[in-house]
């Protein structure tokens, strides 16, 4: 599919396509493929339908929420998502918990534990429960009948070893008694350890009994209770999405999916907290409390959260249309790895280096190695000690010996540090944990160890990368500047100009439009450099053509930017009122705005209908 028009239609069709390119290994040349959508049949019609209606009802609120000039509303003529507030999310969650509680005749606490275990899918809980209640209970730690605490006056706590009277002791229905202060300590430790507390079990190692809301209410400190509630809410948003990832592979699909706004990812100082051997973005550090409800079957992946963060729903990076998610992921990883070489601050936007203590050490090592600069080695040194979890993408730092890495809960993905493959698939069959086939095979095929190629690459790659990175980063900073200018223009200059030119502000709309176009075009142009970097070397003609068009687009944008920046100033500062030539300025600026990045349209993968405003849809 090349145009979005097709995608809109696809909603009504029957085709079921795996559009989530992030999960597929094959790299599509056609970035538009990344925005293909599928038709969805829900296996839980009641549940989803009721949600949908609510979401549709709250649709119209969107426009009222955009406040300042950063708005990009005009860039998104169609909205296929809803931003949910914390209350909205909680309401949905409570409804789901109540539904399961009613149908299965279990407590709300048990219902919540069950739902969390099944990634908050009401239908999956029902299916599993009615298929094999006993096994489900075992898996999640719900006991059928509570074990009674022995009727003696004094009991010994299994944690502090002190003797207490029976009324000071409690158990999670399994008969393993601990004193109330040890319960408090146990629960508090777990909650402060992260969202894994949602899967808390009885302290007795052999016991499966789940520790749920009732025990939290009884024993947790006030602030821990709040944290727990927060984790529970986040889980409802985040794990829901994960379940969707998985179920798409299974051929199951869902119409509505929530995702947490990933805005914290852009605030590195807040994001990552070091923990024993795993770095995780702790729950409380997420930048905002909104979730985005995404409706499949229409429009693009671009989402604008209420917190004014714009991101791609699919990969949760910043909006990167028209470049596909895979290219973006590769590029960001590349930037992270090379940031030390480039000595550039921008890359810390992506979180990994900024707060990683180990990387400081690595920087030191790198300085030692400065005598013999070898970009491949330096970047691999950094890469080797900090990698994103292959499943949840949170950065993980390795500072222990073994290659068996377990991501922090709730992800808990176990993988091999060397090949990033699932640990479950590791072992004899794949030639042992460290001798992963993939690595060995690659080595045998000479991908890794070809001395000739490596020398060549060492010589050229840094230079080549620097070229693309500089342009990517410059467009990024230029875009930031344009956003600031746009805000300044709207808040201050527009009024002045209106006075000066004796025209109502409504007549000056073309200036706002120009700036919005600049902001958007800078973003697109920025990503074309990531795109360009990954055009295969051998595809010379393709690259030359692309670079020609990119050059045209760039010069067009420079003309537009300059006109909006400089010529506008002339009209603002001019002595005469109204200034001569203002109407010519209007014509010129509006013309340049319409042009936008039109020259990029011949490249199918860069051609998106929404990219160029006020242009007929290319078909």
């Amino acid at each position, binding site marked *: 599919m090349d145009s979005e028009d097709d995608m809109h239609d696809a909603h009504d069709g029957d085709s079921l396509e795996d559009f989530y390119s992030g999960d597929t290994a094959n790299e599509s040349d056609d970035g538009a493929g990344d925005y293909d959508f599928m038709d969805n049949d829900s296996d839980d019609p009641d549940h989803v339908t009721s949600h949908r209606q609510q979401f549709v009802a709250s649709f119209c609120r969107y426009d009222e929420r955009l406040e300042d000039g950063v708005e990009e509303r005009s860039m998104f003529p169609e909205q296929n998502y809803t931003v949910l507030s914390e209350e909205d999310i909680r309401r949905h969650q409570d409804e789901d918990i109540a539904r399961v509680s009613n149908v299965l005749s279990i407590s709300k606490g048990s219902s919540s534990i069950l739902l969390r275990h099944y990634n908050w899918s009401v239908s999956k809980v029902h299916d599993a429960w009615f298929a094999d209640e006993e096994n489900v209970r075992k898996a999640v730690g719900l006991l059928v009948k509570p074990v009674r605490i022995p009727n003696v006056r004094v009991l010994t706590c299994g944690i*502090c*070893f002190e003797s207490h009277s029976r009324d000071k002791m409690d158990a999670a229905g399994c008969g393993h008694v601990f004193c109330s202060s040890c319960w408090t300590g146990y629960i508090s430790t777990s909650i402060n350890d992260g969202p894994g507390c949602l899967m808390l079990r009885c302290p007795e190692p052999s016991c499966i009994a789940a520790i749920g809301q009732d025990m939290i209410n009884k024993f947790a400190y006030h602030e821990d209770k709040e944290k727990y509630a927060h984790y529970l809410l986040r889980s409802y948003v985040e794990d829901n999405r994960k379940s969707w990832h998985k179920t798409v592979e299974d051929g199951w699909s869902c119409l509505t999916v929530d995702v947490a706004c990933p805005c914290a990812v852009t605030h590195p100082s807040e994001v990552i907290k070091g923990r024993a051997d795993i770095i995780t973005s702790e729950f409380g550090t997420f930048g905002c409390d909104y979730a985005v409800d995404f409706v499949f079957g229409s429009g693009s992946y671009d989402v604008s959260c209420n917190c004014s963060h714009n991101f791609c729903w699919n990969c949760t990076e910043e909006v990167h249309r028209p470049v596909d998610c895979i290219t973006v992921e590769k590029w960001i990883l590349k930037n992270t790895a090379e940031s030390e070489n480039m000595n550039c601050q921008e890359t810390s936007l992506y979180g990994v280096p900024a707060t990683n203590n180990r990387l400081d050490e690595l920087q030191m090592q790198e300085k030692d190695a400065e005598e013999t600069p070898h970009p491949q080695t330096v970047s691999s040194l950094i890469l080797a000690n900090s990698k994103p979890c292959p499943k949840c993408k949170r950065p993980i730092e390795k500072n222990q*010996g073994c290659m068996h890495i377990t991501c922090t809960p709730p992800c808990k993905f176990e993988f091999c540090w060397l090949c990033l493959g699932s640990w479950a698939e590791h072992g004899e069959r794949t030639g042992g944990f460290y001798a992963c086939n993939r690595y060995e095979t690659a080595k045998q095929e000479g991908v890794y160890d070809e001395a000739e190629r490596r020398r060549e690459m060492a010589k050229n790659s840094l230079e080549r990368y620097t070229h693309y990175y500089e342009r990517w980063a410059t467009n990024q900073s230029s875009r930031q500047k344009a956003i600031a200018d746009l805000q300044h223009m709207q808040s201050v200059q527009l009024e002045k100009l209106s006075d000066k030119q004796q025209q109502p502000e409504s007549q000056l709309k073309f200036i706002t439009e120009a700036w919005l176009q600049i902001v958007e075009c800078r973003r697109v142009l920025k990503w074309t450099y990531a795109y360009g970097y990954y055009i295969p070397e051998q595809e010379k003609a393709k690259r030359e053509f692309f670079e020609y068009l990119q050059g045209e687009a760039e010069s067009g944008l420079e003309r537009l930017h300059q006109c909006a920046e400089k010529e506008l100033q002339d009209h603002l500062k001019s002595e005469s009122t109204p200034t001569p030539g203002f109407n010519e300025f209007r014509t010129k600026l509006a013309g340049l705005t319409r042009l936008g990045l039109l020259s990029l349209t011949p490249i199918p993968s860069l051609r998106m209908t929404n990219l160029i405003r006020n242009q007929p849809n290319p078909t």
Partner: protein
Amino acid sequence: MANSNLPRRIIKETQRLLSEPAPGISASPSEENMRYFNVMILGPSQSPYEGGVFKLELFLPEEYPMASPKLGRICLDILKDKWSPALQIRTVLLSIQALLSAPNPDDPLSENVAKHWKANEAEAVETAKEWTRLYASGV
């Protein structure tokens, strides 16, 4: 001094470790710091480590037993995410002893040793015996 307000649990555990030591395991607290233990584990019989004495240092952090005891770099789940305050020093040391009987080359500290073990177990066992004799036989 830190020892003065030692939790009752640590005192009880220490008493029991000293009065009823687990077979092949000795753990005694340091005199200066009761949270610091000198541990010796005998190589299990019928393992390549038989006849060896393996010394370890174990430290009980302030948060113990809510947090696990600190040992050297040992890949053992109960020292990481599977830790529970209902476990004890004794259970941890028994687990380490069991690890000597049944090494887990899929979760190694040293990649080379694990590689060797998987490629040629008989030869790796010989090396382990040799190293036990060379480095772990004296006290």
